[in-house]
């Protein structure tokens, strides 16, 4: 089902949705675009937020269950998960969600993840404006949505072409039916034209194979010397999903799942101190190897969607796509 939404009807459209479900949208803040609960605040639909929307599926911290002790025995409780709609997420992040679905869906499937995933509707905004560091087209992740979502919208100038892909997407459009107009053939043509422009502007030198070659060539000792080990790259990457499990509270309390990062020095350290990945260079190499070699073996897809966030966030003079040490000036 397709429909056309004029730009000045976007806010009434979101109003209609937010009366039914919590809407998470990219809000304009002093720190740039940030995905957060929309309650009428100004939106920023031009830039892709630095913090990826996957944090609503795998939060930085979540309660796996609560334990309540009574005479030495425990009962367990899970918190209920509120339904949510992620509005205007980008095709690269949608592709990352498709990857997370495969990773968390491997046997035994991770119900803590799917509990949230099932309660989340996805509205994707196709990319008609490319960010400076984006290379999604090289990895087959964008600029047009490549993976299943509920509703796909594309900015075609004076409005959005909306395409429902699932029954949930149709329901979203039906809920706001009085705000919509019928889609025309020209709308489709304009969408195709705009997406082609973005596709044409994409860098062509960062394909899966080119990055694999860069991994082979890279001087990991030199890169390791520059890496600060801050983990920033892994916390903004929409595909990264390492986590830790820990408890808080005695005798009652909660078992938490918190995000972790294989870039951090203690990540694989064993009791007694032995560490299979001792140096920053080894850990950085492992990060790339996991994305470009191991995850493809496990999921069939590269573990990078070309969003460019790791390069944007990295404070070290490292070019994260060529895998070279940069001059410090280039970074500033």
């Amino acid at each position, binding site marked *: 089902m397709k429909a056309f939404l004029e730009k000045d009807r976007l806010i009434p459209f979101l109003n209609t949705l937010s009366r039914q479900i919590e809407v998470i949208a990219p809000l304009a803040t002093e720190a740039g675009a940030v995905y957060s609960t929309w309650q009428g605040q100004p939106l920023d639909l031009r830039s892709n937020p630095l913090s990826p929307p996957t944090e609503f599926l795998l939060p930085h911290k979540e309660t*796996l*269950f609560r*334990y309540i*002790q009574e005479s*030495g*025995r*425990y009962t*367990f409780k*899970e918190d209920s998960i509120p339904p949510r709609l992620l509005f205007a997420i980008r095709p690269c992040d949608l592709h990352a969600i498709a990857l997370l679905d495969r*990773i*968390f869906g*491997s046997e*035994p499937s*991770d*119900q*803590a993840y799917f*509990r949230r995933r099932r309660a989340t509707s996805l509205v994707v905004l196709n990319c008609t404006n490319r960010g400076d560091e984006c290379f999604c087209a090289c990895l087959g992740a964008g600029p047009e949505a490549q993976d299943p979502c509920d509703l796909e919208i594309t900015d075609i100038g004076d409005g959005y072409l909306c395409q429902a892909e699932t029954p949930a997407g149709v329901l979203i459009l039906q809920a706001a039916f009085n705000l919509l107009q019928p889609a025309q053939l020209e709308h489709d043509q304009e969408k195709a034209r705009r997406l082609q422009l973005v596709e044409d502007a994409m860098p062509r030198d960062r394909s899966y194979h080119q990055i694999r070659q860069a991994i082979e060539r890279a001087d990991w000792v030199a890169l390791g010397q520059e890496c600060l080990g801050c983990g920033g790259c892994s916390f903004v990457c929409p595909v990264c*999903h*390492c*986590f*830790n*499990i*820990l*408890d*808080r*509270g*005695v*005798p009652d*309390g909660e*078992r938490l*799942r918190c995000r*972790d990062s*294989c870039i951090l020095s203690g*990540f*694989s*350290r*064993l*009791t*007694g101190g*032995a560490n*299979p990945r001792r140096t920053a260079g080894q850990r950085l190499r*492992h990060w790339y*190897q*996991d994305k470009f*070699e*191991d995850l493809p*073996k*496990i999921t069939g897809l590269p573990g990078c969607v070309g969003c460019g966030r790791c390069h944007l966030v990295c404070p070290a003079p490292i070019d994260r796509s060529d895998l070279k040490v940069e001059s410090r000036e280039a970074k500033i």
Partner: protein
Amino acid sequence: MSEYTPMQAEIADIDIESPNTYLITLKLLDETTDFRYLPGQFVMISVFGLGECPISIASSPTRRSLQLCIRRAGKVTNAIMDCLVGDVVGIRGPYGNGFPLHRMMRDVVIAGGGSGFATLRSLINYISDRREMFGKVAIAYGARTSQDLYFMQEYKSWQRAGMEVAVTVDIGDELWKGNVGLVTGLIDRFDLNPGSAAICGPPVMINAVARKLMERGFHLSDIYVSMERHMKCGVGKCEHCTIGPYHTCQDGPVFSYDQVREVI
């Protein structure tokens, strides 16, 4: 409830194996649970409020009780060892692949170093109870001192089951009448044909034993190694335990030596 919600188990018995290692017998509170496992698998055990850690199953599925052999190493293991009989802990699992028993049904060398011997006890008792399915079996076990040797009261029963048992310590003392030296030294004495092997211990020991076995004609892919990696989830999701494309918690902890020799 998700995979991360544990079952509850009561500590039914505690045996002291060494000053810092206890053999703990667990009883699942829900006795209807169908808890089936293989030698070489492990569980995630937790003390609520302190956290979880991976521990190999030290008992054999051929026997009734579920036992773990735990060494004081830090937060969670200390907390378990401070528990009393009757206290409740959380367990989930069993996880991991376990030893490929069907491929080991011929002459077997079992080599353990230090606390790595716990997981091998499961295999040894399994073989002991299914003796006719295996060929000659020889056990080589080394610990730091005689105080650190686990399961001493069981060696006799293993010998009665027709297995050769050789034990050594790194540092001898006046009470110790047995061997002093490396585990590899014990293997030279075994009279058996190249078959399969199971090794668990510190990396240097694993490599030395594997080299020795290869000299004796064992094939790389018949030497099985139980690997230790940092683990958090046990189900292939958290990425703490990766070895290349493998998750040690699911594809391991038992690997054939040719799969992992480069990372030991």
